[in-house]
């Protein structure tokens, strides 16, 4: 089974992304939404965490939430996929289950 894990909290503020990555099996998909999108920015001090885990997980980030926070897609870590709400729905539909790390 493949799971989708969603994280909605900034990795600077909370442990949700760390907690998610410590319990998501290899092959899982991880989608960053809401304030969590700030974690998808390259050159920030949490970027290495995501870069280092790219062989285990496929990462996604919600575009509308990036735009709201003024983050240019060009500054997103290479290999993190930007999706819109329709893409979010597809991710939920194409995986077997979804867990929200609140």
């Amino acid at each position: 089974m493949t799971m989708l894990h969603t994280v909605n909290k900034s990795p600077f503020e909370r442990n949700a992304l760390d907690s998610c990555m410590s319990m998501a099996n290899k092959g899982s998909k991880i989608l960053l939404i809401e304030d969590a999108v700030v974690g998808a920015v390259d050159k920030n001090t949490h970027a290495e965490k995501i870069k280092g885990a790219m062989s285990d997980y496929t990462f996604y980030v919600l575009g509308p939430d990036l735009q709201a926070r003024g983050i240019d897609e060009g500054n997103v870590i290479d290999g993190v996929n930007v999706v819109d709400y329709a893409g979010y729905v597809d991710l939920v539909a194409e995986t077997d289950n979804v867990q929200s790390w609140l």
Partner: protein
Amino acid sequence: MKFGILVTEGPYQHQASDSALQFCRAALEKGHEVMRVFFYNDGVNNSTRYTTPPQDDRNIVNSWSELAEKHGIDLVVCVAAAQRRGIVDEGEAQRNGKDGNNIAEGFRISGLGQLVEAGIQCDRIVTFGD
């Protein structure tokens, strides 16, 4: 595919309700079904018709009511959570001796069993919260 949605925060304070609405709209547009939105914890505060957001702001409560009417979505507010937070319909008002009610169009108050039932009947439960 049949979705059930769980919302655990009130409107405005957290983005949860907004994200849930956007997700529902996108799912419906793709031809999926949203069987039920279950409002739990502070999520029950999505269901009060007493809100009057600023005119240039979105009206989250009305958005739920309209979406539900248009697509036949069951909007269920957890009774126990609603009692703690002051969300009442006519029946609850009568039972608890309140002199009025504040539930908005399209929402109904019911038990937590409705959440478990959604879990059983839906293909996916997606949670939006803090």
